[in-house]
């Protein structure tokens, strides 16, 4: 038998510490209550064991005070668990603004991971230690789930939309990557390794491999090939709205509603443009559903993301927000 008997998972991200702290709080509360009940049961069963076959128990009916006591105390303990769990969850849901963005496509049964500079990996992910990493993920077929136990992060990877997770590795090493949503025959082997490297090693690794140019460059090329640039001209005078500075901004739609131009919005607007029409434009963009695959979509989105807003436009999130301090919830955890 190999592998020994590990009892606790490795801790290799900033989040791991916080998840473990919550875990130990819960463990403490549950151990206390479980042991309390166990001891009471054992003590009562022995102390009040039946001594004669015709003996009966004392006629006690109940106690309002006790009932209220053991409703209120567990309730309060539970609310602490809820509040703690929820604030941790919100921190997990909000990636820090300067995070390095990596695109992930899951398919039966492999992971394709794409660095913004163009490096593509399969079932392996190399990241530098101490950097915030954001993964934007989608699936080509069924629901998968990206899970790195050492980082305590996990998210389902769904077909037809983007989900994301973020983490900041704290310790160089090789960590398991699992698919943890059942996805068919080879679900158990749809995994690999996340390699956390010292920044210098990471730089060396990045410059070592072959690359076909950055993701945004590939997106720009595709943008021209699909003739998107015929309508989406940067001056805003084309048949379609200008895409400069669009990423992360708030878009006003036909009918008065607004929407944040995030990955999911851009994805929908490429695949099914009629779903949300930008105010002042006609619904005449062709449908690209079936014409671009998941990887090409990510290239297009990376390209749109790279179109920085003109210097005059300030106050919009996105590239311009780089100097802003991180959100409070995230800051607390770093």
């Amino acid at each position, binding site marked *: 038998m*190999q*592998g020994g*008997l590990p*009892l*606790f998972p490795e801790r290799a991200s900033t989040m791991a510490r916080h*998840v473990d702290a*919550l*875990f130990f709080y*819960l463990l403490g509360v549950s151990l206390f*209550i*479980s042991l309390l*009940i*166990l001891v*009471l049961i054992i003590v*009562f*069963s022995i102390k*009040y064991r*039946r*001594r004669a*076959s*015709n003996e*009966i*128990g*004392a*006629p*006690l*009916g*109940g*106690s309002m005070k*006790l*009932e209220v006591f053991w*409703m209120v105390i567990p*309730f309060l303990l*539970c609310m602490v*668990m*809820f509040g703690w*769990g929820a604030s*941790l*969850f919100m921190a*997990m*849901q909000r990636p820090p603004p300067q995070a390095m963005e990596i695109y992930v496509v899951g398919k039966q049964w492999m992971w394709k991971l794409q660095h913004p500079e163009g490096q593509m990996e399969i079932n392996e992910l190399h990241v530098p230690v101490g950097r915030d990493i954001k993964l934007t993920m989608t699936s080509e*077929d*069924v629901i998968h789930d990206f899970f790195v136990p050492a980082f*305590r*992060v*996990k*998210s389902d990877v*769904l*077909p037809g*939309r983007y*989900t994301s997770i973020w983490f900041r590795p704290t310790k160089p090493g090789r960590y398991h990557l*699992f698919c*943890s949503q*059942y*996805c*068919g*025959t*080879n*679900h*158990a082997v749809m995994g690999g390794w996340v390699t956390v490297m010292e920044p210098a090693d990471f730089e060396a690794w990045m410059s070592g491999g072959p690359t076909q140019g950055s993701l945004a460059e590939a997106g720009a090329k595709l943008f021209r090939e699909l003739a998107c640039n015929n309508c989406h001209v940067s001056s805003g005078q084309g048949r379609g709205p200008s895409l400069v500075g669009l990423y992360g901004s708030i878009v006003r739609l036909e009918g008065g509603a607004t929407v944040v131009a995030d990955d999911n919005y851009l994805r929908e607007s490429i695949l099914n443009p009629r779903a949300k029409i930008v105010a002042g434009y006609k619904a005449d963009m062709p449908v690209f559903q079936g014409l671009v695959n998941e990887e090409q979509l990510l290239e297009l989105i990376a390209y749109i993301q790279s179109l920085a807003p003109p210097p005059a436009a300030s106050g919009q999130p996105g590239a311009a927000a780089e100097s802003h301090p991180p959100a409070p919830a995230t800051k607390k955890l770093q």
Partner: protein
Amino acid sequence: MSSPATAPALRRETYLNVSFGVKSWLLTTDHKRIALLYLVSITLFFFLGGFFAVLIRLHLLTPEGSLVTAETYNKLFTMHGVVMIFFFLIPSIPAVLGNFLIPLMIGAKDLAFPRLNLASWYIFNLAALFTLYTVITGGVDTGWTFYTPYSSLYSNTHVVPTIVGIFFAGFSSILTGLNFIVTIHTMRAPGMTWFRLPLFVWTHYATSLIMVLGTPVVAITLTLVAVERIFHLAIFNPALGGDPLLFQHLFWFYSHPAVYIMVLPAMGVTTELITAFARKKLFGYHFVAAASLGIAVIGFFVWAHHMFVAGLSPYAAMIFSILSYLVAIPSAVKVFNWTATLYKGSVSWATPMLYGLGFIGLFVMGGMTGLFLAALGLDVHVHDTYFVVAHFHYIMVGGAVMGYLGGLHYWWPKISGRLYPEALARFAAIVLFVGFNLTFFPQFILGYLGMPRRYHAYPPEFQVLNVLSTAGASILGVGYLLPMFYLVWSMRYGPIAGSNPWPATGLEWQTPSPPPPHNFDRTPVVTWEPYDFAGRADLQYPVPRPEPQMFQPAAHD
């Protein structure tokens, strides 16, 4: 040992000897006979599901998987889940013990709709045939959760016949629930007010509400999956504009409350066991009764806690997290009241009580680990790992099956008219408790280490814990086989039980064992409060003598 021929008590007309022959059983409308028919059906399914579990645990002895291929492994855990949940756990206590006991406990001649009751057994078996067909022709590999789009588009196994089977099993469960609700409302004996009902009846009422309200939703949802699969529709298929998360919402809207279908009746059984073997009024009767309804009602509003990492909005996740904590409160109320009932009781260590106390212990562990899963930030790490597998086995196997076996032992004298061998039964109960913990406790550690569920192969560092779990499962398996043998044996050779061997306070103990075809020779009139040992002059206690000690043969041998 007395033989049946020399036992004068058995010459009396009972539901067992009122008529003979296969036809008299297959066409019976007597709720007690139908309960026994269910007992046979679900025992077969329990051992079928258990057989799959044995293969799963054997396969996981080595990291690369030592027994079957990946495809077969996936089918094994799917069939294990489908069979155990839909064909054993959901019908177990309600359809066997509930069917047998509810009319007896409320002082009725039968359920309100006896023919519907028989029909629901036939529908259950029809469902069973579909499922057996699937097993024989190659199985299904979607997991018992049938997540789309895998189940509707990608799997090429027998999804549709399995869904048809579950649909019919659900229909059977709806009819049982409907029958219980109407019976409890309209058939109570004179004097049997709502707050004189045994808790067993209260929990079955709560369970029936879930069956009636939840099951239709999963039936229509799975039907849509089958239809989508056959006609390639787009309802749950994202490639054509559908929404796979909609399936998960609809599925868990039933399947989370379904957990309470499994555990609420076991809570009812435990309440009966604790009061009968502590010979004491239930502490906080009204609170325990209200907690049963509370669990059933709140249980309908926590479904999305299965979807915290599925791409739910974080605000929705928060609401479902807080509601999940709320449903923990009534469960805690029950546990505390059971414990308080032991205080100043006259606690016997008879077999059913061992199961009852075992239930509390395992349910507390299952419930407590549920709090881990409801904490959003922590669920992200443990979701879809063996932590979840261990948690729900503690609730469903540690809880529901312990309750089922405890109830079966407690009411066995009433069902069969015979006593089981006490010493052997205590031994089996302890083997079960130990085997269960050895099997499933290591899985909590595996889960926190990060081993995902539904893996046919795993990294080598997880092997020791998996081997431990498999070793525990072999002990657990022995624990399950023992009762089957000695209960069957006792039907013929066990000592004759009187009408009230323990004695206990419920109406079911006022009629002879086994009961006559119409339960009571005349309609009972209830004038006493539930579990009131002190106020009951009619209970016949055995002559005063010291209690038999643990592991000694019982006095009747």
